[in-house]
């Protein structure tokens, strides 16, 4: 097979990248080697455009056991318990085949977590679709939701939280990000770093097929006359096999047999073997004729590049092959020793004893290209938009419009398709600020949430980056959890475009600032570039997944109003910032302007005070204020409960639209019993927190003095109809 310019191009390699390959190998690569380089050097595996920015993120902390660089991050949650978590994107496959794309996305992230020895205990997802009016959207929504459920439900891990958004920026490129969270004993964490020479390299799991082989190879000569039949395809998920693989791996992990273990994700056998060898500064030799194959006549090229799902690579301690094999046989899975570790620091691929490829590991890993791409800084849009028409808007109409819109409707239609209760430790399900999962058999719990704000990030990436971390932090605080660490999935457009690269760089600066200030380190993550089509990039959409600790779960903190005639306290200052708000978007179709300012000091102080109030058991319910502003947050508190609200006229601001729909940051709503008010006020005053008592709960009506009065049942109906009518 001749390596022509066209073949190189089809492998997504640039001319100078090919020159670098020649230099590193001191010769031309053969076709197999070229395929391996292309797999390892692509953006997805090499992080060549993002690495220099990612390295600025804070990744250390008192509670961090493992930061970025492993299959998933690990944090300490006290005693001998640790939590393993990570988020990953599956955007492109989900657009082509929504069910399978989303399903295999869930499967992939689960493997990242149980590879580390953790039993997965929760799944989350962040899904973004195009405009509901786009004719593709409905089908994509249906497919993605049933794919996520189809995999998660079947494997028996509760899907407990997530976010679903619609925005025309995703019309031709939806986002499907899946996050998995697992629990492990601190002394039983497994890593991917290989150790020792001449150790068995074992392949376990499903057989290898021609799934998802690098699209580039399609036109190559290896696909001959019957190429139609050999065409690479989207991967199909097999949750049943994944369940078996998970149980088998966890069973094997109870013994002392594993030196290192790595799932086969993107670039399958190639990236898993290279990663293990690279981390261990070793070589690895594979005998490809031993690879269990699903199809006949698979070539080394196909085996190395296949992205078949539900497979793992394990390096075993000497003499453990037999006992390990027995476990995998019990679970009806393949278990084959396909190679060994070596001291050559090379990847050597043999097929029936003939060497088919030989590449120094460093050439694939540490010496892979690294780019400092050009990026443009975004200026904060200066002019404040003046809206004279504001006075003409009836608050009730605006509220109803927002509550019945696709983005603000109740997501029950989606979450009821997910098993949220399996494993019997889900103390708080979807629909709340954050889900709460009890650690099995213990009193402690974790809280989890995923968040994004593409509109803010687009308007001003730096502020947007800051804001999502804060919003995520706030969500955990609202359920009484102390936020510990985050994972992030950075969904952006084409990094070769300096505008996109600027969005990326600045979002990361924002994320970094918030994480540092809040002591909220990044322990894992994933970058997805090239989201978009025909030079139209998606709005920058970093997604933050956060985990917090509740040391003793005594009472579930939720945002549903609990009692009649209790007081409502608004914590944090309200300025009435309407630009980039849902109100402007929905009512005036205004998309310009700057996002609300993020004040990290207030954010931290407000949040910590809320936690203090929750911990002292002084509050009935808590809700953070986010998109839609105060009024939407108040409505949400009422909708999920048996009570309404009576809210006073705002005292300071003259314009009530600004007051109620503004999206100023760092704010919370608390429902407090009358007799506990003085204690709460004391805490807030001691901590120097700005707050207002804005009203109280009542029966049957959601009411804002002089503005609106709506039956709570009607409010519920308004909020619950969109999906059923779609």
């Amino acid at each position, binding site marked *: 097979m001749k390596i022509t310019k066209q073949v190189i191009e089809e492998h997504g390699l640039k001319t100078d990248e090919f020159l670098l390959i020649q230099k590193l190998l001191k010769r031309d690569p053969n076709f197999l080697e070229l395929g391996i380089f292309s797999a390892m050097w692509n953006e997805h595996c090499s992080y060549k455009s993002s690495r220099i920015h990612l390295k600025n993120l804070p990744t250390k902390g008192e509670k961090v056991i493992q930061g970025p660089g492993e299959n998933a991050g690990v944090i300490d949650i006290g005693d001998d318990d640790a939590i393993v978590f990570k988020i990953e994107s599956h955007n492109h496959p989900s657009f082509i085949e929504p069910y399978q794309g989303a399903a295999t996305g869930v499967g992939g992230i689960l493997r990242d977590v149980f590879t580390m020895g953790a039993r997965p205990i929760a799944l989350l997802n962040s899904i973004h679709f195009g405009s509901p009016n786009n004719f593709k959207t409905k089908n994509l929504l249906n497919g993605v939701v049933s794919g996520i459920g189809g995999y998660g439900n079947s494997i028996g891990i509760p899907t407990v939280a997530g976010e679903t958004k619609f925005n025309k920026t995703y019309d031709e490129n939806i986002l499907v990000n899946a996050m998995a969270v697992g629990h492990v004993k601190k002394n039983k964490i497994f890593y991917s770093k290989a150790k020792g020479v001449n150790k068995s390299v074992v392949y376990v799991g499903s057989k290898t097929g021609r799934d998802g082989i690098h699209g580039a190879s399609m036109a190559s000569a290896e696909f001959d006359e019957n190429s139609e039949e050999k065409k690479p395809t989207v991967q199909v998920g097999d949750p049943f096999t994944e369940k078996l693989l998970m149980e088998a791996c966890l069973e094997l992990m109870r013994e002392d047999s594993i030196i290192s273990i790595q799932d086969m994700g993107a670039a399958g056998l190639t990236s898993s073997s290279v990663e293990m060898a690279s981390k261990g500064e070793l070589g690895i030799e594979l005998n490809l004729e031993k690879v269990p194959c699903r199809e006949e006549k698979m070539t080394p090229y196909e085996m190395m590049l296949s992205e078949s799902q539900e497979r793992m690579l394990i390096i075993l301690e000497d003499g453990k092959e037999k006992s390990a094999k027995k476990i995998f046989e019990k679970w009806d899975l393949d278990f084959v020793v396909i190679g060994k570790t070596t001291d050559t620091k090379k990847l050597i691929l043999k097929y029936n004893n003939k060497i088919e490829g030989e590449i120094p590991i460093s050439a694939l890993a540490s010496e892979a290209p690294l780019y400092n791409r050009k990026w443009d800084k975004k200026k904060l849009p200066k002019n404040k938009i003046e809206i004279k028409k504001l006075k003409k808007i009836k608050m009730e109409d605006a509220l109803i419009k927002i509550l019945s819109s696709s983005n603000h409707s109740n997501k029950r239609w989606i979450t009821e*398709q997910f098993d949220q209760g399996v494993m*019997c430790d889900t103390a708080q399900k979807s629909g709340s600020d954050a889900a709460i999962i009890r650690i099995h058999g213990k009193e402690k719990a974790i809280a989890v949430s995923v968040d994004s704000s593409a509109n803010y990030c687009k308007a001003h990436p730096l502020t947007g980056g800051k804001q999502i971390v804060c919003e995520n932090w706030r969500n955990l605080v609202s359920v009484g959890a102390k936020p510990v660490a985050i994972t992030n999935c950075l969904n952006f457009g084409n990094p070769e475009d300096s505008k996109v690269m600027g969005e990326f760089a600045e979002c990361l600066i924002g994320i970094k600032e918030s994480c540092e200030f809040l002591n909220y380190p990044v322990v894992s993550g994933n970058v997805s570039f090239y989201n978009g089509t025909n030079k139209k990039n998606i709005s920058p959409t970093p997604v933050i997944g956060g985990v917090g600790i509740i040391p003793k779960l005594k009472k579930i903190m939720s945002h549903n109003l609990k009692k009649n005639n209790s007081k409502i306290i608004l914590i944090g200052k309200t300025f009435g910032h309407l630009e980039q708000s849902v109100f402007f978007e929905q009512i005036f179709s205004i998309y310009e302007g700057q996002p609300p300012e993020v004040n990290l000091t207030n954010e931290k102080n407000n949040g910590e005070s809320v936690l203090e109030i929750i911990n002292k058991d002084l509050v009935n319910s808590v809700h953070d204020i986010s998109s839609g502003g105060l009024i939407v947050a108040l409505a949400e508190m009422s909708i999920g409960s048996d009570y309404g609200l009576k809210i006073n006229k705002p005292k300071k601001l003259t314009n009530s639209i600004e007051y109620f729909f503004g999206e100023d940051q760092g704010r919370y709503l608390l429902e407090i019993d009358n007799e506990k008010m003085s204690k709460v006020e004391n805490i807030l005053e001691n901590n120097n927190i700005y707050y207002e008592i804005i009203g109280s709960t009542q029966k049957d009506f959601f009411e804002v003095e002089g503005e609106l009065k709506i039956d709570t049942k009607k409010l519920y109906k308004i909020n619950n109809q969109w999906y059923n009518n779609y």
Partner: protein
Amino acid sequence: MNSSVIVFPGSNCDRDIAVALEKMQFKNQMVWHKETTLPKSDLIVIPGGFSYGDYLRSGAIAGKSLIINEVIKAANKGCLVLGICNGFQILTETGLLKGALLRNKNLKFINKDVNIKVENNETKFSYKYKKNQILKINIAHNEGNYFTNSDHLKKLNNENLIAFKYCDKHGATKEENNPNGSLENIAGIYNSNKNILGMMPHPERMIDKMISNNDGINLFSSLIN
């Protein structure tokens, strides 16, 4: 009381039910599907989940497993058998319970807390409940739409073999409270001997107030005595 929980590849509520049984003081054992003998058991539970991924038809493949023959033998001798969710589906596939569980009428997986009514409280599974007591129990299934022929349906009614029905919070068994299209809102049934119960709702998820409620407890406390 000795209980056995049968574990198939793909079962995923096996731990949940084991936790519930142990909490209620059963001496429980997990039994792998490849076993050919059952430990001494007063109660056999076939747990929920996705045995064999629910491939082909939910419960169909588990219905052909080795251990199932032993379950059938034990059941025919009068051993108590409880099938929850996928367990109910497996029991119908083996013929221990009649009828079949079709796909939910909305063709979607449904997970939510629903109200069910105790139709018969005079069995070993249910006597700690009151007749017509309304329970709030979680359902989580794709195929819970109970179907049977009209003769058998008559028999279910005449012989008081309907265990639970989906209802509203006052106990009315209206169509709008039927989550999955099940005939006559049926959520669970007994065999003629009333030693076998199959039900779609998950009582094992309702034994802990911190997580949900306690409405499932009386099923287990009925059984333990």
